[in-house]
């Protein structure tokens, strides 16, 4: 990577983030100037801000338009960063839309302000190629998320959820930071590419292997927390249950994807020479995460906790793709970018799918006042549209063709099979069956249960828009997978070099 001197035109590479900062300022001013009853428009303002940032991303930051190595090598605007940026901005927009009608948070300007700030942090997580910038962006998004998780001040559960998330998050991110300080010491630089070049291959060169492996472990702990991999998952169900549901949706998709973006960036640029070691660790984590996530999900009565454990299990499938990186390379015939491309594709489709599922849950729990699975009984007769959206989401999570989830799993398992990780593929397939069991139970309750109440569930316009966009996305990304797979593959290639 060549570091370029600063030119004003480089600011274009940050156009989406600049738009988000302006949007945050507008939200703050509107919050001060509006009366209490008109504040529900703030969510729409925030969503428009995210939409404008999406347009800016598509206009100014298409890979190839801007070269890498800008801002002293702090950021790299490649296809990988582009794909993740689009994903975060989209998740932010949908979260703002589904939070608009919330009785408490929908009227609070600071909620949308902090949400925007968190997305800015995540964008920089995908862009950063420097330890300082990386730590700064991780904390910028995490600190905002701690506050968001605890933002329902009238709820005991939300306060508890915010505290738990903060205590676990501050601890693990500091462990990660200790690893960063050691990396700086080994390489004498904070640029990821320079560190990668300095570390080189395991057992070759000046840096002894054992300290590097310790550093690798701190990275796995710090980011294992963000992606909620077993055994760093204890916070996830509690935080997901207690946090305001739009934030639960946001945490389960955007925060997890951001964790994966940084994990891919660090493992593939700093530790490529140690791939033989970390793929082993990742494979073990993948097996544990899938199995424990699915087994615990089967026992849940609360739909938010069920989706929390399901999202832990989904992280396991994604780790399976990451573990497939190394053997592919040694086989020589195919590159590791297949595996990484499958990971990026899966993250994209998982974001769309989980947003639909949480969108429906928020609507139903708002009128029933609880999150029990039994409340969904007979939803198909009350609101056929919502029931259909939930059906699409759950079948996609379960991996039924022709929905996006099927192709996502197919690519992941195919990559793992090419890497000769057959035992992991078998474990993944068994887990996919286990998961299908509890998704189908929810579908059964929705379609065959008796409704307790015949009234339709009220749905507002921003909501209909968000649910339509995501549901159609789930089907499109599956049926017309070609272009999306191409972007994911290009992103995977960018992570490697």
């Amino acid at each position, binding site marked *: 990577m060549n570091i370029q001197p600063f030119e004003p035109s480089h600011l274009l590479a940050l156009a989406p983030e600049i738009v988000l900062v302006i949007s945050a300022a507008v939200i703050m001013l509107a919050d001060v100037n509006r009366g209490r009853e008109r504040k529900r428009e703030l969510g729409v303002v925030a969503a428009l801000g995210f939409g404008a940032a999406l347009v800016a991303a598509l206009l100014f930051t298409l890979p190839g338009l801007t070269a890498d190595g800008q801002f002293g090598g702090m950021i790299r605007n490649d296809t990988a960063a582009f794909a993740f940026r689009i994903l975060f901005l989209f998740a932010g927009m949908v979260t703002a839309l589904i939070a608009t009608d919330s009785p408490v948070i929908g009227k609070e300007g600071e909620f949308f302000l902090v949400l925007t700030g968190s997305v800015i942090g995540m964008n920089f997580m995908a862009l950063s190629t420097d330890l300082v910038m990386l730590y700064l962006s991780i904390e910028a998004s995490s600190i905002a998320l701690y506050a968001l998780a605890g933002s329902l001040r009238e709820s005991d559960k939300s306060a508890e959820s915010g505290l738990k998330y903060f*205590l676990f998050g501050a601890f693990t991110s500091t462990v990660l930071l200790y690893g960063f300080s050691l990396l700086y010491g080994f390489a004498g630089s904070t640029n990821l590419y320079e560190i990668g070049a300095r570390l080189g291959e395991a057992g070759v060169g000046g840096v002894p292997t054992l300290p590097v492996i310790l550093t690798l472990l701190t990275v796995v702990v710090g980011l294992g927390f963000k992606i909620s991999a077993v055994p760093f998952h204890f916070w996830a169900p509690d935080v997901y249950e207690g946090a305001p549901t739009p934030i639960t949706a946001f945490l389960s998709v955007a925060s997890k994807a951001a964790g994966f973006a940084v994990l891919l960036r660090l493992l593939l640029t700093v530790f490529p020479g140690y791939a033989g070691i970390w793929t082993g660790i990742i494979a073990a984590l993948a097996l544990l995460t899938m199995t424990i996530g699915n087994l615990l999900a089967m026992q849940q009565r609360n739909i938010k906790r069920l989706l929390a454990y399901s999202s832990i299990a989904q992280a396991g499938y994604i780790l399976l793709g990451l573990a497939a990186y190394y053997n592919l390379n040694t086989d020589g015939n195919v590159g590791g970018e297949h595996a990484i491309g499958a990971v990026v594709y899966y993250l994209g489709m998982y974001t769309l799918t989980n947003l639909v599922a949480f969108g429906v849950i928020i609507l139903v729990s708002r009128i029933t006042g609880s999150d029990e699975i039994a409340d969904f009984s007979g939803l198909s007769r009350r609101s056929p549209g919502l029931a259909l959206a939930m059906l699409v989401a759950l079948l996609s999570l379960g991996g039924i063709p022709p929905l996006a989830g099927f192709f996502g799993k197919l690519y992941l398992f195919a990559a793992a099979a090419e890497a000769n990780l057959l035992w992991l593929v078998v474990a993944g397939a068994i887990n996919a069956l286990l998961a299908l069991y509890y998704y189908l139970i929810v579908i059964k309750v929705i379609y065959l249960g008796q409704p307790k109440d015949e009234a339709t569930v009220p749905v507002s316009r921003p909501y209909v828009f968000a649910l339509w966009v995501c549901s159609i996305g789930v089907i499109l990304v599956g049926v017309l997978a070609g272009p999306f797979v191409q972007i994911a593959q290009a992103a995977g290639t960018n992570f490697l070099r």
Partner: protein
Amino acid sequence: MSIPLSWYLALSAALFSIGVFGVLSRRNAVGVLMGVELMLNAVNINLVAFWHYGAFGPSTGLAFALIVIAIAAAEAAVGLALIISVYRRRKTVVVDDVNLMKF
């Protein structure tokens, strides 16, 4: 200049370990936060020591340490706010007592 780099690294590792022990053993949320602060200071010792002995050129290590201090302050501000929010509702900051949600 008679003190070698390894002493600083050992000090930092010890401080980090004390911090980890504090986080894992403390029942009080404020105590846990103090453990995290110790760990952050261990990181700062590492960064400044590496910068001083490594002759790495530009003062990246110093800048990194300053940024860590700033972020630690931001983190403590949000963390203490959350602890106060829990205390107002539950009249306790003992982590074991804050357990409404169990599976």
